[in-house]
């Protein structure tokens, strides 16, 4: 059982969202550079090197731990951008760097032995031997678990590798595939989530309105068609609606978001160290309200209005997702 309350790790896509997260009570804030080293490499989003260093300073001054995501896979021939960003983090006093690539982790451990390394969900470490490998090879101190594990599996993992902390997603978008191992978007667009940091890049997404019907497309492929008043979801291939055996269905997942607030006591019992909110691409409103609501829930207060965060969800729906066995 955890004596210390679980740490709430919150997203920030802009300095304004970072302020909103700290204001709302985030214990830690994760953010990243405005370039391809970032798995949320969207136009206009994220931090310039200067903003990032200032963000780290703001966090440190206000008692929130700054964690920097450098969580794409560096290019062959030229990984200088990724290395430069690790150096900036080390110099600016980042609380941790969240990375997924073995080569970059090797660089960071050699060059900055005091820099704390967390394993990004993009590395998809989903079992005890995998976590042990990253610990032994690269001194990984915490692993962000992929959204494919049940609470029981998480408990077994924390028991098997007690010296590596675990962080689990509790709220936000839901990747239903093993993260960092998905080329569906690249198959349609030529932009690799692993290499370029964007799943369903905006440049390749188009919406078409025909009367009340909205069609979403990615590259040359139709992903979904929403009827009048039907709630929409992200234009990612895993949230699409397809025809399989003559039947139209959301084959991979209905458009919905993760909300595991009800499982917080289970996570605590499972030995989880930190809880993560997805959504660096979301607005200040999302960050402020979701963080506030989760912070209250961690403190054992349930008085918050459950509908307050519901409206931020894809298609307005929530699931506890993979954490319960029934999902599989």
């Amino acid at each position: 059982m955890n004596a210390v309350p679980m740490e709430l790790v919150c997203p920030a896509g802009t300095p304004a969202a970072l302020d909103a997260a700290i204001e709302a009570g985030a214990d830690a804030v994760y953010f990243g550079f405005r370039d391809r080293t970032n798995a949320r490499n969207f136009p206009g989003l994220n931090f310039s090197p200067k903003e990032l260093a200032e963000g780290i300073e703001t966090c440190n001054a206000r008692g929130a731990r700054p964690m920097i995501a450098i969580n794409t896979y560096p290019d062959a021939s030229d990984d200088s951008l990724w290395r430069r960003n690790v150096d900036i983090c080390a110099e600016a006093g980042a609380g941790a760097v969240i990375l997924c690539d073995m080569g970059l982790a090797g660089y960071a451990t050699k060059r900055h032995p005091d820099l704390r390394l967390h394993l990004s969900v993009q590395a998809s470490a989903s079992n005890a031997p995998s976590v042990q490998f990253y610990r032994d090879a690269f001194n990984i101190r915490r692993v962000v678990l992929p959204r494919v594990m049940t609470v029981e599996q998480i408990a077994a993992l924390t028991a098997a590798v007690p010296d590596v902390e675990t962080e689990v997603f509790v709220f936000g978008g839901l990747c239903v595939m093993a993260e960092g191992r998905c080329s569906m978007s690249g198959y349609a667009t030529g932009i690799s989530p692993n290499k370029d940091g964007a799943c369903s890049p905006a440049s390749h997404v188009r919406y078409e309105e025909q009367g009340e019907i909205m069609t979403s497309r990615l590259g040359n492929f139709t992903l979904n068609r929403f009827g009048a008043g039907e709630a929409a979801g992200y234009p990612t291939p895993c949230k699409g609606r397809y025809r399989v055996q003559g039947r139209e269905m959301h084959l991979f997942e209905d458009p919905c978001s993760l909300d595991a607030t009800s499982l917080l006591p289970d996570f605590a019992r499972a030995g989880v160290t930190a809880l993560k909110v997805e959504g660096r691409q979301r607005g200040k409103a999302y960050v402020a309200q979701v963080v506030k609501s989760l912070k209250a829930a961690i403190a054992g207060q349930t008085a918050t209005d459950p509908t307050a965060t519901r409206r931020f969800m894809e298609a307005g729906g929530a699931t506890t997702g993979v954490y319960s066995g029934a999902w599989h």
Partner: protein
Amino acid sequence: MSQSVRTFSPGLLLGLLIRPIPLSALRVVARPVMDGLIADLGPRLGDRLSGLQGRLAIVPTGHPVAVVLDIDDGALELDLIEADTREAMGAVAAVRAPLETLTAMLDTEGMDGDASFFARALTIEGDTSLVMALRYALEDAGAGIDDITNAMPWPFGAALPHAMRFGQRVHAAASRDLATIQDAILAPVRTEVARQDARMSRMESQMQRTQRRRAAS
């Protein structure tokens, strides 16, 4: 000032501007406001818009006027045009949503762009990346009502802070509150317009002089 009052959104700008008065008159009134806004906001949008190009139209559902933003590698220009199809407006991207949705989007107590999109309250046509970039840029600029006040020529700027007190929970009853704000700000303008068109040009030159004075001071 509370956070919600400080929050500026493109929707609010629209709310201040679109009333049933002729587009030509509206443009004249709006021009200095928009120029002032751009002068103030442009630098704060930082380099979030760098490398992007094209015209983005923001169309409040059911209203005859659209705000168009011309983005050219970080530089920004605002204008008002007749709402039309995206192609007719010459826009590479168009966002359509009810006024209250646009208004509430950047309020920390409201919905964010994703949530509005999920709820089908907001539609995006054309180049999605331009829309996203502008959204993040505006949000991070964190522009407040002060920006509009500063951009507005006398006597409207002076009237604004009072009017904005109605906007405290603008997302909750947005249409009603906005109508109040619009009336407060635009009633004198409408009267002027109704009186005679010629006076508009005098007013325009007066505004420009005011602006130059403001810039000089």
